[in-house]
């Protein structure tokens, strides 16, 4: 891991290794237990505001500002399997490390990404925010329910499901380490899933 620390995650993908995947799968297994639910209102509000800010930035297509909410070593994960599955053995709808997230933004900012020309308009509702403690005080898991309406080519569509956010407290505040997007139709055919969900 010391070697990984010397690499810029925007340029190389040193942090996505076997240990990273194992930790990811472990973190997203059996985490939504009642006894771990966080009561602290201030902490819950901090998490809620972070999720609301994320939705607001995405709706305004401020993609670079959105990515700044993420830790340097992060994952945006849209499983194709209900409950997540194991990304080492299964294709996901999307599984982006930081570099691929920057690829994604680069492409969306390119004038020739036809699936986003004209650019979609979106309105995101994020609700039912529930915060769960982990064994690490600097880390929280958050479940929320989302409903994203997209206007693309004059046609309204919806994406809905629940988010699993893994948050970590870094020196400058809470950052998103993992965003898992669980679409209710993750194992069904999706029409032009080219926006950030």
């Amino acid at each position, binding site marked *: 891991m010391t070697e990984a620390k010397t690499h810029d995650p925007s340029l190389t993908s040193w942090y996505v290794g076997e240990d990273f995947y194992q930790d990811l799968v472990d973190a997203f297994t059996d985490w939504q237990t009642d006894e771990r639910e966080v009561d602290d209102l201030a902490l819950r509000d901090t998490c809620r505001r972070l999720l609301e800010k994320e939705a607001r930035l995405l709706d305004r297509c401020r993609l670079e500002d959105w990515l700044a909410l993420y830790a340097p070593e992060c994952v945006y994960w849209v499983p194709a399997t209900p409950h997540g599955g194991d990304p080492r053995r299964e294709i996901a709808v999307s599984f982006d490390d930081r570099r691929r997230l920057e690829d994604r933004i*680069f492409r969306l900012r390119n004038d020739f990404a036809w699936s986003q020309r004209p650019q979609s308009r979106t309105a995101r509702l994020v609700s039912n925010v529930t915060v769960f403690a982990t064994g690490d005080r600097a880390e929280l898991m958050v479940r929320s329910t989302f409903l994203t309406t997209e206007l693309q080519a004059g046609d309204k569509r919806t994406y809905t499901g629940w988010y699993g956010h893994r948050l970590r407290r870094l020196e400058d505040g809470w950052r998103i380490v993992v965003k898992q997007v669980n679409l209710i139709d993750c194992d069904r055919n999706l029409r032009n899933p080219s926006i950030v969900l």
Partner: protein
Amino acid sequence: MTQDEAARRPNRLPTTQYDYDALIHEDRVHQSLYTDAGIFREEMRKVFGAVWVYLAHESQIPKNNDFVTSKLGLRPIIVVRDNAGTIRALYNRCTHRGATICRQPSGSARSFSCPYHGWSYFNTGQLSGVPWPEGYGCDFSDPKYNLAQVPRVASYRGFIFGTLNPDAPSLEDYLGPVRQPLDEWLDRHPGGKVAFCDANRLKFRGNWKLLYDNSCDGYHVIFSHRSLLAMENRLVAGNMPEKGMAFYKNSPDDGPIYLKYFGNGHHFKDKRATVEKRPGALWEIEGPHPGMERYEAALRARLGENADAVLDLASSEPVNINVFPNLHILGNHVQVSQPLSVSETDTTWWGTAVVDENGALHGEVDAVNALRMRTQESFPNFGEVDDLMNFEEIQAGLAAEEDEWVYMHRGLDVPGRITTDADGVITGPSTDEVFLRETYKYYRQLMTAEPDIAITREVAHD
């Protein structure tokens, strides 16, 4: 149609209400092929009912009693490996009143029971029982009460096909020379096989043929995928090799990429000659993917010079192998297209994983697959979405009925572009539309004939 046939299928449609010779010309086809619901309905019979249609992959049903649901045209099908190991394609339609009997996309079951009135069937298709049989005056051992099934089901190296046409050639003959690139694609993997590992599932509002028309098209790449090409190469600097589909840049007709038309609508675009023939060359042109530096370093440390060949297995194989009407093998994906209506199509990009039963990968199969999952997610996320948008916009453009023609004459009447060998296999440059013209000749042949579609209810084993 004889009187007997009319009695057997009282609702059988007249052969056609369309003049396909007027709709399909050498250089162009009529817009109604993509927009007319009546033509679509005929296709479900004359194309999907007449040829071998891909249904499923054997790795989806590895054990006896495993099943996966599929479609043959619009017909709902259960592909099952029955209790005795025979692969069958059962109609997912209760003999009694027509309800689907299997509503799970996959699973394992020795029998299927209709949720509506409880008729149940063994996974051979044989009726096993009906509730309160004393209320019936018939003999339920008559096979007419068994589930309908596709009469001819066959596999080619793991790919399961079915046909309703008793007059169709054998599957091997139907595939013909497209088997060679298919064999080569499989044989680059240990044991000559792959296993499905979930999918990128997409859909578009457009006719299914828009996807087939695109499948061997080397002309669209640098335009439709311009954003992907830019993205894959945004970090390339100095003497680094260009990444991904950069081999299409400049003048793709003068380079080593070529396409072949094999007959029966099958075609093949081969980009392998753009890559040096040495271990590791394919891996070198992979665009950036999650985990690639970390896994590569670990594999090189553990395997030394053997790492290159292993890394190539995580890399996208630069071929497009298209099996008419619904199967495409490209990169490491098995892409299946599924018409839903004249203007709606599902396209499912099955990921494939490497299987290593004999230790050919020095124990690194899990590392290869962890990389290979990520390489496969790239094109559906950043390339296919742009194609699908273009397909939808073609469908929108074709609403202009009186602007009648869709042109596919690139290469036509230009001397020296195309060669035809003794077996009739046509070879041309990668941007030539000869593959479209030849496919539509075959399509016209299908649409002007009437297959004698048959189902069976016999449950005899192979």
